């Protein structure tokens, strides 16, 4: 990607590998975050999420591959001019007030010099951010007196103070109480509505499911899954078929039990399990459901409904991280 190209991707990782010590943390990582995405980056602890973020933010140079942010090489300091971030550790200065923390970062990004003639505007910018995260009334308090939730909200405000186009959040709700989590999530959604591109690393699946449109799932340093969340759910769900049978007697239940082994033996059935009156089958995409229905009919087992399975992000996550998919 060259600078000046029509920018469509806020983040692009091409074949990133990262070795720390003698351990390969990232193995050939490839994905792109499009402009306007709320991109969820999922993975269990130790999967390589934070290392990926460090590569994106230019803290770690990759051993091989290239990372780009906003069309520029991530190792280029200037590439981070329009990038906001909240890292695992909030990085706030405890001895400074909320206002001073934001003012400091304003100046680091060169905001004060640009707005020197309009200092009032500069102050308004900080005030606006504090209002957005509902910390205006505590703006003059030292950050050391803040709760974890308040600190995270202030870190979010700090990430926005220079009006970035891309925001990178590493576990922004970790350690925050449920009310705080809802507030932080709402702030992130508000930011997305303002047209910001958001990269959200999390292992809170509910959070990702609620707010992200695209995801990548990393496990043991490898990207296991990547794409649009709804499409992934559809695609993975399409392979699951739920058959509601009309069994009522013990004899029918016994017949159904016997059929499970037969169905599992079919080449296109990857798994089959019986849940009360239901049969839950995983197909590999080649199979024909009508053949299965016919087999049930041959055993005189009535079929009341056949429907595609709905797969949640949690189920996708479990399947992928356990190596089932």
């Amino acid at each position, binding site marked *: 990607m060259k600078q000046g190209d029509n920018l469509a991707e806020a983040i692009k990782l091409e074949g990133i590998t990262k070795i720390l010590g003698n351990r390969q943390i990232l193995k050939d990582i490839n994905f792109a975050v499009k402009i306007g995405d709320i991109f969820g980056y999922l993975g269990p602890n130790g999967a390589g999420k934070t290392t990926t973020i460090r590569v994106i933010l230019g803290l770690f140079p990759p051993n091989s591959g290239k990372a780009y942010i906003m069309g520029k090489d991530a190792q280029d300091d200037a590439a981070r001019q329009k990038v906001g971030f909240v890292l695992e550790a*909030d990085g706030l200065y405890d001895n400074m007030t909320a206002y001073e923390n934001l003012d*400091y970062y304003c100046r680091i990004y060169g905001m004060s010099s640009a707005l020197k003639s309009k200092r009032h505007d500069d102050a308004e910018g900080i005030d606006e951010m504090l209002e957005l995260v509902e910390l205006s009334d505590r703006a003059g308090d030292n950050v050391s007196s803040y709760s974890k939730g308040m600190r995270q909200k202030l870190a979010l405000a700090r990430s926005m103070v220079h009006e970035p186009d891309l925001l990178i959040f590493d576990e922004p709700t970790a350690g925050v109480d449920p009310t705080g989590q809802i507030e932080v999530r709402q702030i992130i959604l508000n930011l997305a509505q303002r047209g910001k591109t958001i990269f959200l690393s999390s292992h809170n699946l509910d959070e990702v499911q609620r707010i992200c449109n695209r995801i990548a799932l990393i496990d043991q340093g490898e990207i296991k899954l990547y794409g649009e969340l709804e499409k992934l759910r559809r695609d993975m769900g399409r392979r699951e078929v739920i058959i509601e049978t009309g069994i009522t007697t013990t004899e029918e239940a016994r017949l159904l039990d016997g059929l499970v082994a037969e169905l599992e033996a079919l080449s296109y059935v990857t798994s089959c399990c019986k849940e009360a009156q239901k049969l839950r089958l995983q197909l590999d995409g080649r199979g024909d459901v009508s053949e299965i229905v016919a087999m049930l009919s041959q055993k005189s087992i009535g079929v009341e409904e056949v429907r595609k399975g709905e797969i949640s992000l949690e189920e996708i996550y479990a399947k992928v991280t356990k190596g089932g998919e």
Partner: protein
Amino acid sequence: MNQIMVIVKRDLRETLRTKAFYVSIAMVLFFMVMLGGAVKGQINTLIEKGLSPAEITSAAQPLMGTTVFMLSLMLMMLFCMYINAYTLTMEKVKRSLESLLCTPLSLRQICLGKSLAVFLPSVILGLLFAFGAIAGINQFFIAPKIGQFVMPGAAPLVATLVAVPLIVFFLVTLMIALQLIITNIRWIHAALMGLIFGVGFGLSPVLRFGSASWSIVFISLGVAAVLALVTIYLSRLVTKERIILSSKG
């Protein structure tokens, strides 16, 4: 340069809010009272020998030179240790440094900002206290006896105003570089403490040969040059990755 000064100003403000800074001032004041007593004794010895004011002046001048040179060097190093011990250690522990590294600032800007935030107050305070001591010694012990002030010679003045700040600047830069990449920062502070005493004892014989001579300027500039070379060599090892990984400890 603007962004560097933003770091310097914030760190200075942080320094002024720390107890360690005021403890260092109190320690220096105590040290100066002790030093004043020692110098007073030396001046009295000269007077008791029955020397004329002109002879006392020529005998006291090297003493003033040694005092201003040694005092400025040791005070600057002491302030460096106290100021630096708090700010950078806390930034690594609280991981605020990691956030700073994610901004568009270059590593060089951050290192320079952090170094200047330690160097500037240390040099200003060191010079202020050292020349304050000279003024005090003259005001209270010399002028009442011989009716005039005895100032240090040109060589120790140049050494104090040029060479010593250069030594301190490269020492601070070296210290910051090491602190950034070494997990156990206490080792750096212990090393610096050793260096302060080492310089104190090590320079004593050199000064005996004549603090008023220009050799002190050249020796000091040589020390600064060696420190500069070591700093330049070691600064190659300072990378964002090393800083982050050493912050974990």
